[in-house]
């Protein structure tokens, strides 16, 4: 890897370097990416940086994923957070705030809004935030000159603000691409061509990035292939799990007569057909397996947004399955995660996509030490992560009959698992603890932009599982 050493510092004579972190979804947003964003910011502070996080206002998250103030408790108090008054207009549900035009044709109004947004920046929903974000980074930089900008995507409109600061002040930047932009992680192909408007934006911004982070090897491979001359700047920085989310699972001995509790925690962002397959598998398993017949399946997380919040086909399916012991309990605050996991005997890992998708929850699921039942494509990156997990049923795809066998297998594991099995599972997951993943990544970034001063207070973290 080549270290691109840039002429720094530019922090206006301050002793601590300053980073602007475009992190839309930062706590208290109850969004799955909030953990990664929080840990990244904390790692910068730990490495001696001043950091200013730019995100959007809390009201915006109330409309979408909701708020979880317990998430903010673990944000280092030295992290400065700037909340911009940006909000998704399409998710407005107060009809008094609607214009007559919108009330007459809600869908048409949103379609026209999307067109306007994409004229500003080629990203539906968020494109219209471009100028506010650009002004925000320039303002923050004026007030406290930055040595580095880190943009976490999505939304990709962050790239416009990143470019603006580079164009006007040549502030070096890195992009935490997570799932990537030009890659269709679900379908597996190219999301847009290089000569499209989005393609031109992506290649322009990545050209000068000091580093580009992705969450797994297939995505990194896609980018290295797409931009061969940037290959050494593309790094895998995986998602991870938080120790304080983990339940105490030692000394368990579930009673088969009382049945077991299976759980899923996360956004219900898959198709109704996907959910139907899993529920059908669950029903078959209950019919054929006496332990499952007396067991429960709890689904927790966010379903739908705006007017469709908890009022879509998924909700109907879950309600129909209530007679089969299935229940929906809404989102879980971060502070209650450990207790929620602790109340379950096995976890159902429902994931969309394939080899390009890892998702954050796979790390947390495996780190709980509970049996994990995979409900996703066989050729999925989660399969690579879970390989070797002693309490994993394996991935069998989405055929209900095969999923039914997995439910039975997970039940058998839950009843027979020993403390040694659970400890082994946790040990396997340990390399994905967030500090272990993000510490080296932030340290490396620090070295790139401030090669001589970084690292004095860096936490000791193994880099063996983090591919830089």
């Amino acid at each position: 890897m080549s270290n691109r050493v840039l002429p720094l510092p530019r922090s206006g004579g301050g002793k601590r370097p300053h980073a602007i972190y475009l992190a839309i979804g930062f706590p208290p947003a109850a969004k799955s990416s909030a953990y990664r964003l929080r840990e990244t910011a904390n790692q910068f502070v730990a490495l001696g940086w001043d950091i200013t996080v730019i995100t959007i206002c809390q009201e915006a998250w109330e409309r979408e994923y909701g708020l979880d103030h317990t998430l903010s408790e673990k944000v280092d108090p030295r992290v400065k957070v700037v909340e911009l008054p940006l909000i998704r207009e399409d998710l407005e549900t107060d009809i008094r705030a609607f214009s007559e035009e919108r009330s007459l044709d809600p869908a048409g109004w949103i379609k026209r809004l999307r067109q306007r947004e994409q004229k500003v920046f080629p990203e539906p929903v968020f494109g219209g935030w471009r100028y506010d974000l650009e002004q925000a980074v320039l303002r923050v930089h004026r007030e406290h000159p930055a040595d580095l900008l880190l943009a976490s995507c999505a939304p990709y409109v962050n790239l416009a603000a990143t470019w603006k600061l580079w164009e006007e002040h040549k502030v070096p930047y890195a992009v935490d691409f997570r799932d990537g932009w030009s890659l269709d992680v679900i379908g597996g192909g190219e999301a847009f061509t290089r000569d499209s408007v989005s393609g031109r934006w992506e290649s322009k911004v990545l050209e000068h990035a000091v580093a580009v982070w992705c969450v797994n090897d297939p995505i990194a491979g896609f980018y290295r292939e797409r931009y061969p001359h940037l290959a050494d700047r593309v790094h895998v920085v995986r998602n991870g799990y938080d120790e304080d989310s983990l339940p105490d699972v030692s000394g368990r001995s579930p009673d088969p007569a009382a049945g077991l509790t299976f759980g899923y925690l996360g956004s219900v962002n898959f198709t109704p057909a996907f959910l139907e397959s899993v529920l059908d598998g669950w029903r078959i398993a209950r019919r054929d397996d006496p332990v499952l017949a007396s067991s429960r399946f709890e689904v927790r997380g966010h379903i739908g947004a705006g007017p469709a919040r908890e009022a879509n086909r998924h909700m109907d399916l879950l309600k129909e399955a209530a007679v089969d012991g299935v229940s929906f309990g809404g989102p879980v605050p971060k502070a209650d995660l450990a207790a929620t996991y602790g109340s379950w005997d096995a976890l159902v890992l429902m994931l969309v996509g394939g080899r390009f998708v890892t998702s954050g929850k796979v790390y947390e699921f495996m780190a709980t030490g509970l049996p994990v039942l995979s409900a996703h494509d066989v050729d999925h990156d989660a399969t690579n992560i879970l390989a070797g997990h002693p309490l994993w049923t394996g991935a069998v795809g989405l055929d209900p009959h095969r999923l039914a066998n997995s439910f039975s297998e997970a039940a058998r594991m839950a009843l027979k698992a020993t403390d040694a099995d659970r400890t082994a599972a946790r040990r396997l997951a340990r390399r994905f603890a967030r500090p272990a993943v993000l510490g080296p990544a932030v340290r490396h970034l620090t070295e790139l932009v401030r090669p001589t001063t970084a690292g004095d207070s860096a936490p000791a973290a193994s880099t063996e599982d983090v591919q830089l």
Partner: protein
Amino acid sequence: MTTVLIVAATAPKQPAVLIEALERFRARGASVTVACFFNSADLPVDPALAEVRTFAVPGEKRDARLRKALGRAPANRKVWLHARRNAWLRQLYRKADLLVALDARAVHTVWEMAQRNTRAGAYYGLVPAQRALDARRPESVGRRLERQVSAAAGIGARGARRAATQTVRTTLRKATGQTVMSNPAGAWFWTRAVAAPRVPDRFRSKLAVRLHDSAVKAGRPAVAARAASAAVSRISSAGTRADVLTKAAQAELALGRVPTGLHDAIRAQLALADSLLPRDSKKAAAAVSRAWSLASNRVLHFDRLSSPMSEDPGAFLAPFRESTAARKLSAKRGRLAPAAPVPADRPLRLLVTTLINDNFLQEILERYRAMPNVEVRFLDLYDDPVTRPLALSGSTVMEHLLAGESSYGAKIEEWLRPHLDWADTVFVDWCQATAALFTLHDPGTARIIVRLHSFEAFNFWPHLVDFSRVDDVVFVSEHLKDLSTAVLPQLTEADGPRLHVIDNAMDLQRYPRSKPADARFTLGMVGFSSVAKDPRWAIEVLRRLRERDERYRLTLIGSDFNNRTSKPAKDYGKLFSKDLAELEPLGAVRRYGQTDDVPAALQEVGIILSASVRESFHCGLVEGAASGAVPVVRDWPFFAGKPHGARSLFPADWVVATPEEAAERILAATATEERWAEAGRAASEHVLKTWDWTVTQSGYDRLLLDD
């Protein structure tokens, strides 16, 4: 107690979700009413949870005012127009604490209710409404007063604006209508107004289309053309220009006329395509496709008694020959290897392929299937429902040809490559989609033969065929060869395909049968369902004959006239129906109907007519002649006076120029029973020794089996 009014415009897709929400509302002590714009019986809800009532005004109770308002209101406003008429609902929404729209169509109704009840919360969706109920805080008097004032002012202002807008729209519609445009002063005014400076393109284009439409309907095509042309000269966007001209041309075509601005519209679309080609081949393909759609419109070629294509192909197609994008569609891409010779060591593998129509293939298939030295496969691209859509979209083929590669092209390759790999010879019947698809990719060493009948020459498909990948083109007559080579000059280039004229394969032996004596006075036509067959010409011949002898009658064999294809076909159909209404009761015309036994139907026909304006060969006439009927052939106007046509195809005494001539020939040929029988026998002998399959098959043997 909190009062909640939920408005549902459509039956909820998630009834369980609604029931649960109602339970939550009840748990909070709220009284809930669900007002439905559909039958409340479709939403079974426990009355203890909520009252469910319908507010749609039944059809019989809608007065003229409501009907008029509903007629012009947008879909979502219609729901409100019903709601405001309902007394119980008015009472309810005025006192409700919380108004909830359950679906998108109900949002406007709740929005209007919220303007009239400024105290209530108004939400879209059940969960947002529940949250609002939980977080409900009393509002300050000042805030509420402010909202009341602004809502009341808004209601008044919107009402006035709506009335004003409606008045302006009505006035404008009348001012630009047919009456005004048929008046020279009105036409003068609007032709200048539409070209006034500084009018935004989108308004100018809408006005231009409206004025053109009114002028055409008023029977003033020249005024229409002037208005469109004046507007277009001021429009800066090439896309809008092309759009205005195309809409104007389409409006005239819909009225069954040849548009005055047809070529302007075609040229505008092609200019747009050429400008788009370097940067957006998809949009360029769409523009070329629109140009071809105008040029191939059936009103121009099939539903009238003439066609600009047959009159002067070069002039008609000139815009396409000048366009880079259109030329690219038929650009030669060549083949990597020449077609392999007929194999000597194994049977020839012959793939016979078509799209839907296999009417002219039966004899060919039968003959070569019976030959031990030929292995035959038949492929109808329409048969497989999965791949069928790939063969039905010309615009997608254009997209592929302009882009050079596409996922569509890959699918065609995957579909047809195994057939190309298997076949030594591919015989493509009809020069349409099948020919374009089989030449989309390199055919390897397979020999490609394409047979062009007639309609294709007027269509866009041959222009998507890469003839550098075609080895032989077969025409069914010399005059179609003449027309096709004028339409497709690449056919006659030095490196073009070999051209053949081979007669249609017809088994005529089954037609000669004895005829009753009174068949002498029966004229017959096989096929009369389209304008091109011009059955009214036959009626005209019949009328002239009946003036002299009322024993003459006409039997029409085949499916009925189809007047649904276009306005001209409808107009023609009306006149034809009048003819039938007059002549059928007299027994002068009989519609025999569709039959599988044409030889039997022809037994009662003593004179067989070809009244068509164009034919490639006219099998029905030849079959009639084979039966022993005396043939009378109109000199097909599309080809009359040209080197080849009906006169060069048939014996000279068969062909006539006018209905009068036809009547004379018939009277002469049927003057006596003996004369009629002799003329019929001679015609039958001629067709059997000229066009029977036992004679013509040698042409196909030479084509398919000789090297």
